[in-house]
């Protein structure tokens, strides 16, 4: 059976470009590129209300992303929201008395966890709990309070 070299070349080119497209999407389009280091440790925080926070929401210190939210559960006894965060292990010198708050990126943007470093000499370790937390700001709640204040002010 005859098979020409140009045909082989073209099929090779086709397969190579298909695989290249897949790699391009994996590295440039998805979050795989930023998952390069899988070394991380888990930190737990209890919030009264975690609002619209989702698994995989970013955790940032001073605006730099240091990890992601890995799980959100409800504490059955205290009825608080338990948020587990995975912090990349290169950031292993975060003080243990740091505080966490849930903020919204932009007015209607996604919610993220902001970690404000404290001043302790001890650092956060795997499975340690952050005590200083401030809950998510729920827009409806704020508008409700504002309306109530306005009505009472009259």
């Amino acid at each position: 059976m005859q098979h020409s070299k140009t045909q082989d070349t073209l099929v090779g080119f086709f397969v190579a470009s298909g695989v290249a497209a897949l790699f391009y999407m994996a590295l440039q389009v998805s979050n795989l590129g930023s998952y390069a280091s899988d070394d991380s440790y888990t930190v737990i925080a209890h919030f009264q209300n975690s609002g619209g926070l989702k698994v995989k929401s970013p955790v940032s210190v001073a605006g730099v992303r240091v990890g992601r939210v890995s799980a959100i559960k409800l504490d059955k006894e205290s009825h608080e929201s338990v948020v587990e965060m995975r912090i990349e292990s290169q950031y292993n010198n975060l003080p243990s008395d740091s505080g966490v708050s849930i903020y919204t990126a932009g007015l209607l943007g996604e919610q993220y966890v902001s970690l404000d470093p404290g001043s302790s000499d001890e650092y956060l370790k795997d499975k340690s709990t952050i005590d200083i937390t401030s809950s998510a700001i729920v827009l409806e709640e704020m508008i409700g309070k504002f309306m109530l204040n306005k009505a009472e002010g009259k």
Partner: protein
Amino acid sequence: MLQFLQNLGKTTRSSFAKLGRASFFLTHTLAGINEVLARPNLLFKQMYSVGVLSFLIITISGLFVGMVLGLQGFNILSDFGAEESLGVMVAASLVRELGPVVAALLFAGRAGSALTAEIGLMKATEQLSGMEMMAVDPIKRIISPRFMAGFISMPLLAALFSAIGIMGGHMVGVGMLGVDDGAFWSQMQASIDFQEDIINGMLKSVVFGFVVSWIALFEGYDAIPTSEGVSRATTRTVVNSAFSVLALDFILTALMFGDI
């Protein structure tokens, strides 16, 4: 009334019979895969006619679909002051839906119809019976390599479609409409998950490649061996593949992304 019931029964019986023939055909084809791997020359020849020849239509359509998404998305998103989310919108819609689905529809029109016509004509000119006379199994020799080629080419074509579409969206959004380059990519990377979005999108195109190749080859093999029969079979290939791709897409989306 009785006539109607009789017709209904007849249609049901014949469609069951066709489904049965199609599944026999599929098992026979799959049984021939090991022989294809032993003779990669056959596969390469089909990869050329199924994959390489669909390359141009897929890349050009992908580019234009991406550009249209960029333009339309920008118009809508700028009403909400959220132009920066353009990257997410373009990438998510291409990777999850448009890439696999439109590539599969184009593939059915470009490669599927050609396969059906080719096999149907082989049957009409009795080449397939000729092979049987020489004790060569036409399914293993003719159908299996084509099936394999379609099955391999489809995910590659869908990946190309999505990647080029994203580049097209970037070209229009960042190049012409002035969306910030960094925000375009960073928001995209923050929201598109490799496993959830890209792997699931690829999985869809694998399923579509399987189904479209199966339909195209079976319709050709099952065609009435006349010129009219072959032309009808070609039409059925395009119609049935389009219908199956869209219906399967809904089911796959519900399984992958929905909470059903």
